[in-house]
């Protein structure tokens, strides 16, 4: 491992330089505050879809999925399937109305729809909490990557990612990051695709060994581990979390506002669906090949499978080059997702915390954003230092359970039901947020236990989402008198095509 650090170092340095260079180039056309936050809402569907894909495909997708497939088999195929199907649910339920709402962040949407500062504040707290929960595994994954490829101490990778993200987000904001993230989608795809061709060729010339031969029987059954009722519950709960959780991810919502109109928002989402489908065919290949060539990684080091498989299967220079390529892809994954989350969290913090008057001083819009970005990065960085050994995809899965239990009900009811009241929304957000949040905290604190309690707390979405939805509906019905007066007008804004001239409130 100590002789072959060159490709890894070269890859990390090149990706970092490319990211900063594209960000700087984007800076030249990023002039107004509107550019800074929302790229002036002129991003075309194709570019925007690449950017969303680049932002969305995180360390969990690039490293985590293949590792989980190696260890657990077909049950883990539900992660990539759910992360893609989440965009279909988002497309049919929220894409166009969310863009038409004119909201930049989820708190903006809540305030505009419900006309309540209280709901806004609660949503801000949730966005920051979810953003940090999602940033944590990105930084951890970066630590794992650098330790595996260049033997650096685990904190080094986290620190490099944090610094590059800050350097690329702070100067140019949304406009420049759009190009960076679009570039990073194609880099990630290439970084898995080209090695995959080589590895399949090697596998075929080795006599095309059957990967399931060496695997336990449960490897080809798409149900969670213990099987039986618990397995069925866990699988369906994961499906609920990923299918609904996507629409509530703060960094995804921010990107929707950069679409020119609702129709473009839909087309962007459909293009994202295609891009994700192409990408997610690849990690299972690595998982299956890993069964044959790297079965011992399954015990505890599965996250490095994608990084180490090329070296294990292809000796010599070609293997080193492929390792460099997958390292570059993994690093792009950390950078793009972390940048997107940093922008989302910083957007909320700069509106509600750093942009406020502190004593006699008050920071301007862009300065407040930069301070907020620093806070958004430093907190999860510190949190990631003590805990380095949680499976990356699992932590991300927990973040999905929280968004599915909080923002998904708020968006679905807020967009399709006039009767939602501020108090109903607050009650539902609290029930869903506290319920799923407590379950997540319990799961992160006590690793690996079995039985119904562990299943219910490890995958809370199947009960916390209905609980949150039901609370919102029941409390809204009880406080019927406080339905916002502008609800009807807001529905006109959400659902009518922009071409029709209407009063939109």
């Amino acid at each position, binding site marked *: 491992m100590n002789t072959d650090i060159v490709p890894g170092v070269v890859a990390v340095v090149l990706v970092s330089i490319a990211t900063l260079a594209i960000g700087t180039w984007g800076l030249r056309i990023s*002039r*107004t505050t*509107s550019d800074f936050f929302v790229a*002036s809402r002129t991003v075309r569907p194709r570019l925007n879809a690449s950017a969303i894909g680049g932002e969305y495909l995180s360390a969990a997708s690039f490293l985590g999925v293949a590792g989980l497939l190696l260890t657990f088999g*077909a049950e883990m*195929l*539900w992660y990539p*399937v759910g992360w*893609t*199907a989440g*965009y*279909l*649910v988002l*497309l*049919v*339920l929220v894409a*166009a109305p969310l863009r038409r709402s004119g909201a930049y962040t989820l708190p903006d949407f809540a305030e505009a729809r419900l006309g309540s500062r209280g709901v806004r504040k609660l949503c801000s707290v949730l966005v920051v909490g979810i953003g940090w929960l999602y940033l944590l595994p990105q930084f951890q994954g970066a630590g794992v990557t650098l330790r595996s490829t260049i033997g650096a101490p685990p904190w080094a990778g986290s620190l490099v990612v944090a610094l590059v993200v800050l350097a690329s987000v702070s100067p140019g904001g949304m406009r420049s990051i759009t190009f960076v993230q679009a570039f990073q989608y194609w880099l990630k795809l290439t970084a898995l695709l080209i090695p995959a061709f080589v590895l399949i060729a090697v596998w075929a010339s080795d006599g*095309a060994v*059957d990967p*399931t031969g060496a695997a336990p*029987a*449960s*490897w*080809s*059954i*798409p*149900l969670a581990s213990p099987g039986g009722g618990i*397995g*069925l519950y866990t*699988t*369906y709960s994961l*499906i609920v979390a990923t299918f609904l959780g996507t629409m509530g991810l703060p960094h995804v919502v921010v990107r929707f506002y950069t679409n020119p109109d609702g*129709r473009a928002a*839909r*087309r962007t*989402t*459909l293009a994202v*669906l*295609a891009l*994700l*489908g*192409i990408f*997610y*065919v690849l990690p*299972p290949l690595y998982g*299956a090949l890993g069964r044959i060539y790297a079965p011992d990684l399954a015990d505890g080091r599965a996250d490095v499978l994608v990084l180490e498989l090329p070296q294990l299967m292809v000796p010599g220079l070609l293997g080193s080059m492929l390792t460099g390529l997958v390292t570059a892809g993994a690093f792009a994954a950390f950078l793009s997702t972390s940048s997107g989350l940093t922008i989302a969290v910083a957007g909320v913090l700069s509106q509600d915390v750093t942009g406020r008057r502190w004593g006699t001083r008050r920071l301007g819009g862009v300065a407040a954003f930069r301070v907020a970005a620093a806070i958004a990065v430093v907190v999860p960085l510190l949190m990631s230092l003590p805990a380095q050994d949680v499976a990356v995809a699992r932590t991300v899965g927990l973040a999905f359970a929280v968004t599915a239990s909080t923002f998904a009900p708020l968006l679905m009811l807020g967009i*399709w039901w006039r009767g939602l009241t501020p108090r109903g929304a607050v009650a539902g957000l609290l029930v869903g947020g506290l319920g799923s949040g407590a379950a997540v905290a319990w799961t992160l604190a006590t690793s690996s236990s079995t039985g119904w309690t562990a299943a219910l707390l490890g995958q809370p979405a199947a009960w916390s989402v209905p609980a949150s939805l039901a609370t919102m509906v029941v409390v809204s019905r009880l406080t019927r008198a406080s339905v916002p007066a502008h609800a*009807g*007008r807001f*529905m*006109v804004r959400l*659902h*009518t*095509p*922009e*071409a*029709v*001239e*209407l*009063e939109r409130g």
Partner: protein
Amino acid sequence: MSDPPPPRVRVTGPPRRRADAVRSAGTREIDAETALGEVFMRSLLREQLMLAVRVLVALALTLGLLPLAFHVFPELGDVRVGPLPLAWLLLGVLTYPWLLLLGWFYLRRAEGHERDFADLVGTVLPDEDAGS
């Protein structure tokens, strides 16, 4: 870099014409929140929501039934299509084109509904004005 800085750009929304004379009857009904305007809005919302529900039901009846199928018939785990176990083929490959197909179907229908809505409320109907 001695160029003068670029001029400030004022960011505004698309221009809105306010002259009621060129506006259609339907949009005026919706703006005034009359019973008729309410009917227009409700029918648009209902159509779009029913379309969304249809797509989600199609998703639930295909992808959503897979775990149950494998739970009830565990022997499906031994079924192979060529070199691939059935579960890996379905979830690893075939799901993605299916999701894309559902999304494409939704997009076409949703845009169609919006065109119908725009035709319904957006067109100026001279004889209706004369009649009422």
